[in-house]
């Protein structure tokens, strides 16, 4: 088989990489904020019968229980019918953020709940308010525990971001996969283009993995975290 790679593809693929990375990092950042709030509500929001808990749970179940693609198209095609116009980038970002927030909420809940209950008790016994105890004692520990699952989520979202190629029609709004599709559709070099794109995704995943491992090591504290992750 005769493989042909054309360097002329690279500038456009580079743009696609940029958009994919932007989309992923924004949605992960926003999703972390929303996810943390939802996770906190699930743990401290007043128990099963409080409206806050109920809203958070309903949100989480909805966004974890429906396909991301359905959410994306619902936003991209549905919102305009309600008079709210969203471009493909914004629709993608919104869908991915809302979706990852639901997953991250569960990671936060897990991390918060795995902080030993004596930590909260000791903080309250010192005279800290619940909010202070959460801010100064619980979250600093939960945030360290959440790095491994968060890293996985980041990698998932990086790859899932390819679904925005469903809605992007103009070149400047295309993510890496969208660019690849449009290049391949023109020159029929599907195999080469997709190999290249797979390598790009792989490279991004590896870079992010290494970066997060580094962060994890940087903030590691003896006695905090799971054995086997090199305490």
């Amino acid at each position, binding site marked *: 088989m005769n493989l042909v790679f054309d360097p002329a593809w690279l500038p456009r693929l580079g743009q696609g990489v940029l958009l994919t990375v932007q989309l992923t990092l924004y949605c992960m950042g926003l999703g972390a904020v929303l996810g943390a709030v939802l996770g906190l509500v699930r743990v401290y929001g007043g128990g099963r019968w409080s409206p806050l808990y109920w809203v958070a749970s309903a949100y989480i179940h909805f966004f974890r229980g429906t396909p991301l693609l359905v959410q994306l198209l619902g936003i991209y095609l549905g919102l305009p019918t309600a008079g709210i116009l969203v471009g493909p980038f914004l629709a993608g970002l919104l869908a991915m953020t809302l979706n990852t927030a639901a997953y991250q909420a569960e990671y936060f809940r897990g991390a918060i709940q795995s902080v*030993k209950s*004596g*930590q909260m*008790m*000791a*903080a*309250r*016994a*010192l*005279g*800290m*308010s619940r909010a*202070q105890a959460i801010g*100064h*004692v619980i979250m*600093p*520990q939960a945030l*360290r525990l959440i790095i491994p699952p968060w890293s996985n989520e980041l990698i998932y979202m990086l790859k899932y971001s390819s679904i925005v190629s469903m809605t992007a029609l103009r070149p400047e709004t295309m993510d890496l996969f969208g660019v690849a599709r449009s290049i391949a559709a023109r020159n029929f070099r599907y195999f080469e283009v997709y190999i290249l794109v797979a390598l790009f995704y792989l490279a991004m995943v590896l870079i992010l993995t290494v970066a997060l491992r580094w962060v994890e090591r940087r903030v590691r*504290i*003896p*006695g*905090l975290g799971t054995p086997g992750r090199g*305490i």
Partner: protein
Amino acid sequence: MALLRVENLHKRYGHEEVLKGVTLAQDAGETKVVIGPSGTGKSTLLRCINRLTEPDQGRVWLEDTEITSRRTDINRVRAKIGFVFQDFNLFTHLTALDNVRLGLMKVRRMPRAAATGRAMAELERVGLAAKANAYPAQLSGGQQQRVSIARALAMDPKLILFDEPTSALDPELIGEVLSVMIQLARDGMTMIVVTHEMGFARSVADEIVFMEGGVIVEQGTPDKMFRSPEVPRTGEFLRKISDLYGESR
């Protein structure tokens, strides 16, 4: 007037009434040792005093503040009552110094430099200034418990509650914690100590309180409790724990 007054405290978990009307008073500078079989409500009593557990009924006063009143700012009261836990509960993510300093900075709103000075002084007092930068996981159980005592002391508490502070420790580490506590008692700290260390009780307790089944069965000076208890059950229990834990320490 007593520093701490506990009046007719009741606490129920489900169908089980764990505290069935506990009343006691404690003067400033006094050390009380609370003993009793497992499941008797000793920990529950301590936790009801600073409302880490909400009592169902009864009142608690610290000087002229009614702790159990809804209008009392419980966080301000807790800042004046130290609590030392059986399993230390040092903040896992903070060094010894930061453990002692956190309450000073966040609760007492002390500037960092002043808080550091105070925290170091307290670590010095429990003999651990050299371990200021160690994390809890890098300390022995005895050292962790001493840091947790320093954390309580730093807040200038009017009273410290100890819930079996040496029960989680290997035998060879108990002494270092007890000697810190003995020194505190001699320095005039007001303390309520749940413990089965009868050597400690004999040497520094002003009063021993024997609890069983959610009530105080008998209380009195160590002398009275050991030599001539009024309730036979008291003598029986004291003999049992003296055999079990030894008195030599």
